[in-house]
């Protein structure tokens, strides 16, 4: 395929990583950093922050697949992130209420809102098995249905972007109106996570390990999808949907799979996010957070495998570091960072390596054509 998005250029580095040995080396290095180095050098608080950022990175891997490989500008991943997060939060609130008040107890925030009877849809979330199943199935199923409805009608480009963003806005507004889901304040004050006390630093560290493991797993799945025939087909749909259709494939189905995978990743990220951060509210899942998810991917390089992960981590880290250094002026610094990266590295940070290569050697005709 001659058309390559910026960020997916071949460099010696990426060529090595594409070999079997390279892949294992890459995963081993990532595992070493995440499981060995980070817990050693970071304080408990910083490790917790990193765990939170890893959740954003998990969402980013999904966006990289749907947008970078599939060309679907998913401006509304907050919806799926929020679904996963709220489903998990409902279970944690139920478990806390059961543990402290016995069966029949109502989560604390409901008593404040004047709700004395447990709403029927809350009851199943007392079961951890049901909750985990719901987190894996509900957002994915929703994405499949939505994807079928949208892609079968060949809605794409800016129309799809607007639609997905509107969905995120509507979802946040819907939640604000639901007093039985905490309304504007959302759900917070969780004590236990599947029977473990969240206040214990050892358990907080374990949550970090879970987030890191999920990230590696999600990257592995994404890698397998990219290297498969399906992955080739997805890129083909991105670059020339009509031609793929002409060859006899149903382009909509191809897109739905990537969209659903991105939704699943986001939902799992949301579910892991909740016990780590300790709160989920409509403010974390609406239009602005959805754009922030996308921004990290754009900064990192949407078409590469690691670019979205790096971008999500860099954006989140920059936000925290800048706001700690300049509490009243950090938003300007952050804006400047975005402008610089997008102006100088349109392919994201992942294209930086290719950029140096371009300076060293004359572009080959193929690359020049791209």
């Amino acid at each position, binding site marked *: 395929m001659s058309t390559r998005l910026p960020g997916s250029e071949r460099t010696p580095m990426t060529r090595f990583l594409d070999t079997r040995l390279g892949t294992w080396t890459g995963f081993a290095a990532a595992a070493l950093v995440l499981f060995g180095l980070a817990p050693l050098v970071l*304080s*408990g*608080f*910083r490790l*917790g*922050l990193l765990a939170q950022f890893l959740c954003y990175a998990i969402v980013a891997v999904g966006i990289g697949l749907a947008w970078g490989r599939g060309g679907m500008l998913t401006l509304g991943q907050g919806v799926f992130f929020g679904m996963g997060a709220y489903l998990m939060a409902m279970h944690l609130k139920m478990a806390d209420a059961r*543990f402290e008040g016995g069966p029949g107890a109502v989560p604390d925030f409901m008593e*404040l*809102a004047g709700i004395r009877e447990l709403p029927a849809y809350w009851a199943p979330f007392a079961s951890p098995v049901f909750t985990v199943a719901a987190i894996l199935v509900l957002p994915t199923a929703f994405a499949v249905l939505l994807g079928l409805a949208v892609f079968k009608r060949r809605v794409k480009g800016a129309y799809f972007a607007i639609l997905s963003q509107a969905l995120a806005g509507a979802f946040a*507004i819907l939640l*604000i*109106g639901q007093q039985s889901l905490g*309304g504007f*304040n*959302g759900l*917070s*004050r*969780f004590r236990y996570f599947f*029977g*473990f*006390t969240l*206040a*214990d*630093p*050892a*358990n*907080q560290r*374990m949550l970090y*390990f*879970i987030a890191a*493991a*999920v990230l*590696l*797993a*999600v990257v*592995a*799945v994404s*890698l*397998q*999808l990219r*290297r*498969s*025939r*399906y992955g080739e087909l997805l890129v083909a749909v991105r670059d020339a949907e009509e031609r793929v259709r002409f*060859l*006899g*494939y*149903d382009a909509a*189905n191809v897109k739905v799979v990537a969209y659903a995978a991105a939704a699943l990743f986001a939902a799992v990220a949301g579910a892991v996010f909740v016990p780590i*951060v*300790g*709160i989920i*509210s409509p*403010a*974390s899942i609406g239009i602005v957070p959805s754009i922030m998810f996308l921004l990290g991917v754009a900064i990192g390089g949407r078409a590469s495998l690691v670019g979205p992960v790096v971008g999500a981590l860099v954006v989140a880290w920059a936000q925290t570091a800048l*706001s*700690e250094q300049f*509490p*009243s002026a950090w*938003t300007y610094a952050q804006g400047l960072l975005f402008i610089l990266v997008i102006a100088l590295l349109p392919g994201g940070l992942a294209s930086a390596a290719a950029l140096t290569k371009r300076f060293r050697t004359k572009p080959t005709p193929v690359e020049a054509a791209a």
Partner: protein
Amino acid sequence: MPHRFPLPARLARALAASAALTGLLATAACGARAGEETVAAESCLDTSGDTVKVGALNSLSGTMAISETTVRDAIRLAVDELNAAGGVQGKQIEIVAEDGASEPTVFAEKAEKLIREDCVAAVFGGWTSASRKAMLPVFEDNDSLLYYPVQYEGLEASENIFYTGATTNQQIIPALDYLAETGAESLYLVGSDYVFPRTANAIINAYAEAHGIEVLGEDYVTLGSTEFSTIVNQVKSAGADAVFNTLNGDSNVAFFREYANVGLTAADMPVMSVSIAEEEVGGIGVENIEGQLAAWNYYQTLDSPANSAFVEAFKAAYGADRVTSDPMEAAYTSVHLWAATVEKAGSFAVADVQAAADGVSFDGPEGTVVIDGDNHHVTKTARIGEISADGLLYTVWESPAPIEPDPFLEGYDWAADLSVTE
């Protein structure tokens, strides 16, 4: 016929392997289980040096920045005063500033950073209920102290939070008493859709039922909504004796403009607001809101030596055009209350401050406030203010004495159904 879908062959293996990895890690958890005693993180507060750090956590960006930056200024003023007077326990106080960015998750993150990385003795800040609810578990889990300076919906009492703004029996109930005394027999309720207005209106409904007041309507708008023509017309046609307004933020601007637009005035249908202070009057436009009522515990125009000194010092520090408002005063007072408690305890340690808190008082701009050691709230004088043409609020009624805080409304029979057992 369409091609068969090319499902990746190795995908299943990758999925199984990653599921196994995650499961393995999850079961390897070694921390405390539910019900077991947990070892809370040790406080890293170091008082051996010449300075002690405190945190100031307010939104300096986002929608709440306009209100919360004023609170930051008040906190800084109070700390500067403490330092000029020789510090607390002979130590200079250093502020570590953080931006809550109007986001509950950021408030939680920064609170944890202040406690665990900066080792602050206490944190001052927070505004929205959402920000407080997000920070509460952080302060409880790390056993640290938050001083929260804004009036709120009550029904909460944490060992780790000192509430220096009014709870409902120091603001909403006096406002209702005032309306009832001045002859209001019917009310219309307008509020933003979040926990404070909903709780306030639950209290108002219970009060109204017990006192023979009719509630003619109850409307909520999304936070930040500026579309009020329908609601204001409903208010107008309902013809209530007064409107009780629990809107927050920008919505007030649109509401009062529309209110004046349809010809409603303070004389024929007064609006009692609980979130409009000196800062907000300018934004709404004084011509739209002149003569309307507000319920707070402090106004810039209070006539007392302590308040004159506070207003003068604030203007000297930040400019003559600045105004002082209730949350700013409460934040300023909270810093002094913390300092007084530390002096009484003779220690900066959280447990010592908690133990010494009961009965600690400070002669603040609003009058003398005393900490209630049981519920960590403070006594406050309720004041009804009228917005005048100069954009300031003037007291038209005040409670004869400071009111004891009663966050769970245990002293009110009609509120029995509302309050939640702790």
